[in-house]
C-alpha cells in the first residue's frame, strides 16, 4: 500500500490518471491520510463543489490484511454540508480490495468541463477511466447491476446515486457489501456531492490476482490478531449483543433513559419504541427468512448487520441500523419497521445520508409539511429527491437548509450537520462532542474509548462534572487514531473494557509495519489529526461560535427528565486545549 492514484478530472481533453508513490503521506491511513491530504492540498476557503476541492478515498492502515474488522474506508473532502473538513467512513468490500491492489488512496481532483459522467476501473493492470453517460441518474442498485454485467461479480463498487449527481449536500457515497449490494455508506457531510461534482459515478475495484498484504513479522501479527479476535468474541457487546440484535439494540435503552429524541427532539421517549426495537427487528428478520446476524465485509467477526426481507420474504434492504431506525422512526413519530426499511432502501438507492434525511423530514414535519407519524408521506418526500423536484432538492440539501426554507427555529444541527440519535440534554457528555467535533454533530467522533484505562490523553476524574470536557477530548483523540487504522469503530467496546484487546490492536499494527507504537504514539496521532482538521476549519472561517449546540437545547427542557444542556460555552472552548 505504497501508491496513490491521482485522477485529474479537469485535465485537457480527457481525465488524466497518475499513479505515484505515497511519498510524504507514508505511515498514514484512513482518516489520518484523508485529513492530511485535504489540509495540505485543498484551499480551505474554496467552494466545496469547485475544481479546487478534492475527494480522497483511503483504506485504513490494516485494510487488506488478515486483521479482523479492518474493512473500513475513509472518504475525505471539504464538506458541502458543513463547509469544513470532512471524513466519512463506511464498511463493505472496497477498502480491502483497494489495499490489496497496493493503493493507499485515490485522490480525485479538478472538475470536468462538460456534463459527462465517468466510471473508473481499478485492477491489477492499472487504472482505466471511461465516459458512461448511460449511468446518468441511475440509483446505486441499478448502477452496481450494470457494473456486474460489465465486469463480473468479483468486484466491489464505490458509487453515487441521483442525489450525488445533483450535488445535494446530504448525498452519500455507497460501498458494496459482501453480496455486492450498495448498502454501506460514507453518509455524512455530503461527500456524494463532491464525487458528483467531479463527474465520477462509480469506481469499480477488481482485486483478482492479488494476495493478502503480508506483515513484516508474520508470527507476531498472527498472534496479535488471534488475541484481538478472542477479545472481541468474549466481550458481551461485541460477542453477543451486537451480533444478536445489531446496533438497533440501543432503541429500548435510550428510550428507557429518556434520551431518545422523538418528534424532532421534542421529547425523550417514544411510545412506539418497542415496535421498532432491535429485539423486534431481529425477530422479524428471522421470521421472514432474512438474517439477524451478518457481516458487512469479509473478516468481520462482530457481524452487527442483517438482511431485512419484506412481508413476502423478498430482500428489501440490509438491516436498518440504530441511527437510521431512530432518524426515520422515533424522530419522525413512525413506528412501522417495514416503512422504515423502505426509507432505508430509498436512501441507499438515491444515495442519501439516513441520519441527515431522517432529521430533515423531522424538521419538515415540524414545519407542517406532513404530520408526525405519516410514514407514507415521509416515503413520498424522499422520492421527491430522486425526481429532482424543487422540494426534493431542498430536502436533499439537509436539515439546516430545510429549516431555513420553511422558517423552522428548532433545527437540530451543529455546523450544518444533523444531530444523531442521543439527546444531549439527557446525556450532556455526548453534547460536548456534538458541539466541538470538527466534523459537525457526529456521534462517532468521540466513540473510541481507551482513556483512563490506558492513560490515553492523561488521567481525568470522570465523576467530576468538569471531567466531561476532558473525557470528550480524550475520546475524540482516540477515535481519530482508530479511524486511521481501517478498524470498525465497534471494536471500541472491547477495547474499553479489556486493555489486552487494545494492546492486541497496537501489536497488530506494530507487527505489520515493524514499528513499536505505544499508547502515547496513538495519542499523538489522534491529536495530530484533530489539529490538522481544526486548523483547516479555522482557515475556512470557523470560530468558537460554531462549536455550539442549537440554542433550544439550552432553553427547552426535554421530558421525561425535563433537563436542558448545561455545559457552559467557556467550557466547550477548552476541549481542544492540550
Amino acid at each position, binding site marked *: 500500500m505504497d501508491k496513490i492514484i491521482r485522477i485529474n478530472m479537469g485535465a485537457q481533453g480527457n481525465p488524466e490518471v497518475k499513479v505515484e508513490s505515497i511519498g510524504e503521506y507514508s505511515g498514514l491511513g484512513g482518516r489520518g491520510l484523508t485529513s492530511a491530504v485535504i489540509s495540505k492540498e485543498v484551499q480551505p476557503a474554496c467552494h466545496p463543489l469547485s475544481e479546487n476541492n478534492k475527494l480522497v478515498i483511503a483504506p485504513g492502515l490494516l485494510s487488506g490484511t488478515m486483521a479482523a474488522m479492518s474493512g473500513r474506508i475513509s472518504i475525505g473532502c471539504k464538506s458541502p454540508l458543513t463547509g469544513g473538513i470532512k471524513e466519512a467512513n463506511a464498511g463493505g468490500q472496497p477498502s480491502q480490495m483497494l489495499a490489496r491492489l497496493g493503493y493507499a488512496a485515490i485522490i480525485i481532483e479538478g472538475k470536468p468541463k462538460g456534463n459527462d459522467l465517468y466510471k473508473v476501473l481499478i485492477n491489477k493492470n492499472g487504472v482505466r477511466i471511461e465516459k458512461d453517460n448511460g449511468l446518468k441518474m441511475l440509483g446505486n442498485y441499478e448502477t452496481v447491476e450494470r457494473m456486474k454485467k460489465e465486469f463480473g461479480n468479483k468486484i466491489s463498487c464505490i458509487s453515487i446515486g441521483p442525489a450525488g449527481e445533483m450535488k445535494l449536500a446530504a448525498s452519500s457515497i455507497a460501498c458494496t457489501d459482501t453480496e455486492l449490494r450498495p448498502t454501506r455508506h460514507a453518509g455524512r457531510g455530503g461527500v456524494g456531492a463532491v464525487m458528483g461534482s467531479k463527474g465520477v459515478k462509480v469506481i469499480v475495484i477488481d482485486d483478482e490476482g492479488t494476495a493478502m498484504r503480508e506483515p513484516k513479522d508474520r508470527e507476531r501479527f498472527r498472534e496479535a490478531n488471534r488475541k484481538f479476535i478472542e477479545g472481541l468474541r468474549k*466481550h*458481551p*457487546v*461485541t460477542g*453477543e*449483543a*451486537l451480533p*444478536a*440484535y445489531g*446496533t438497533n*439494540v*440501543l432503541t*429500548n*435503552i*435510550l428510550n*428507557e*433513559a*429518556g*434520551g431518545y429524541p422523538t418528534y424532532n427532539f421534542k421529547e425523550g421517549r417514544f411510545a412506539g419504541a*418497542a415496535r421498532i*426495537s*432491535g*429485539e*423486534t427487528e431481529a*425477530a422479524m428478520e428471522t421470521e421472514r427468512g432474512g438474517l439477524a446476524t451478518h457481516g458487512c465485509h469479509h473478516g468481520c467477526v462482530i457481524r*452487527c448487520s442483517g438482511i431485512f426481507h419484506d412481508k413476502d420474504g423478498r430482500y428489501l434492504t440490509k438491516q436498518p441500523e*440504530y441511527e437510521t431506525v431512530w432518524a426515520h422512526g422515533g424522530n419522525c413519530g413512525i413506528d412501522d419497521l417495514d416503512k422504515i426499511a423502505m426509507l432505508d432502501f430509498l436512501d441507499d438507492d438515491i444515495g442519501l445520508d439516513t441520519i441527515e434525511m431522517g432529521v430533515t423530514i423531522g424538521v419538515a414535519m415540524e414545519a407542517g409539511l406532513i404530520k408526525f407519524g405519516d410514514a407514507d408521506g415521509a416515503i413520498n418526500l424522499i422520492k421527491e429527491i430522486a425526481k429532482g423536484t424543487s422540494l426534493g432538492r431542498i430536502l436533499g440539501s439537509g436539515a439546516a437548509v430545510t429549516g431555513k426554507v420553511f422558517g423552522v427555529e428548532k433545527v437540530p444541527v451543529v455546523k450544518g450537520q444533523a444531530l444523531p440519535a*442521543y439527546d444531549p*440534554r*439527557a*446525556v*450532556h*457528555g*455526548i453534547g460536548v*462532542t456534538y458541539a466541538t467535533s470538527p466534523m459537525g454533530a457526529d*456521534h462517532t467522533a*468521540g*466513540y473510541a*474509548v481507551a*482513556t*483512563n*484505562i490506558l492513560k490515553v490523553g492523561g488521567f481525568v476524574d*470522570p*465523576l*467530576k*462534572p468538569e*471531567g*466531561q470536557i476532558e*473525557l470528550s477530548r480524550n*475520546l475524540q483523540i482516540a477515535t481519530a487514531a482508530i479511524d486511521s487504522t481501517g478498524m470498525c469503530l*465497534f471494536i*471500541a*467496546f472491547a477495547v*474499553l473494557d479489556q486493555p489486552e484487546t487494545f494492546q492486541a490492536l497496537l501489536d497488530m499494527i506494530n507487527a505489520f509495519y515493524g514499528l513499536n507504537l505505544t499508547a502515547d504514539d496513538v495519542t499523538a496521532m489522534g491529536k495530530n489529526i484533530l489539529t490538522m482538521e481544526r486548523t483547516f476549519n479555522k482557515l475556512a472561517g470557523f470560530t468558537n461560535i460554531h462549536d455550539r449546540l442549537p440554542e433550544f437545547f439550552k432553553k427547552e427542557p426535554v421530558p*421525561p*427528565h425535563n*433537563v436542558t444542556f*448545561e455545559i457552559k460555552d467557556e467550557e466547550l472552548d477548552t476541549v481542544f486545549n492540550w
Partner: protein
Amino acid sequence: MGLNIKIDKKILPFFLMLLQEGVGIKSRVGVSIKDMLKNHLGITDEYIDKRISTVFLDDHVVDDLDKAKIKEGSILALSGAMPGLVGATLRTHSFYASFRDAITYKEKADALTEKKGLFKIKLFNVLLNDLGPVFLEKGIILEGKRMAEVIKRHPEIQNHIKGISLDDKTVDLYELYKKLSSEDTSQAQCTIILNIEH
C-alpha cells in the same frame, strides 16, 4: 382474569417480546433492586454482576443496586451491556457516568417498609432470553388486549399450545382471543402464567 397457558418452547419468543414493553409483577416492594433480583427472583450474584450491566429504575440510570429501592408502581428495566459511547455511559458504575449525571438515579427514600406490592419489569436484549422464562413462569400481569395482540399477530402459535385455562376453565385459543379482545375485558388486568414444555 387468571390465565394459565401450557406451551411448546418453540413459541416462547413471541411471549418474551411482551417483556420489552413491560409487565406487572406481584412481589415484594420496599426492597433494594439487588434484594429483589437475588432473594425474591433467585438470580445469582454472579449473573447480576456479569450480565445485568444496565439498570433503570423509574426512568433513571442506576449505579448502586443495593441502595436503589423498588416502590409500589415502580418501573424496573434490566439490560445487558450496550454498544456505543452512550451505551457504555449508561452502564452501572460506568467510567463515563458523569456524562449522564442529569439522569442518574439518586435514592431519596430513607427507610421503606417491605411489603407485598406490584411493580413493572422490563427486560431488554440478551436478558430477554435469559430471564424472560423466569418471569413468565412465575406469572406476569398485563392488559388482556396485549395478550390478544400476540395471538392476532402470530396465529401459528395455535399448533404449539398444549392447553389453556382461563379462570380455571379450559378454553381454546379462539375463545381466549375473543374474550381478551372484547370491549368489556380488553382493558382488564390479566395474570398470565406460562407453563413451558422443554
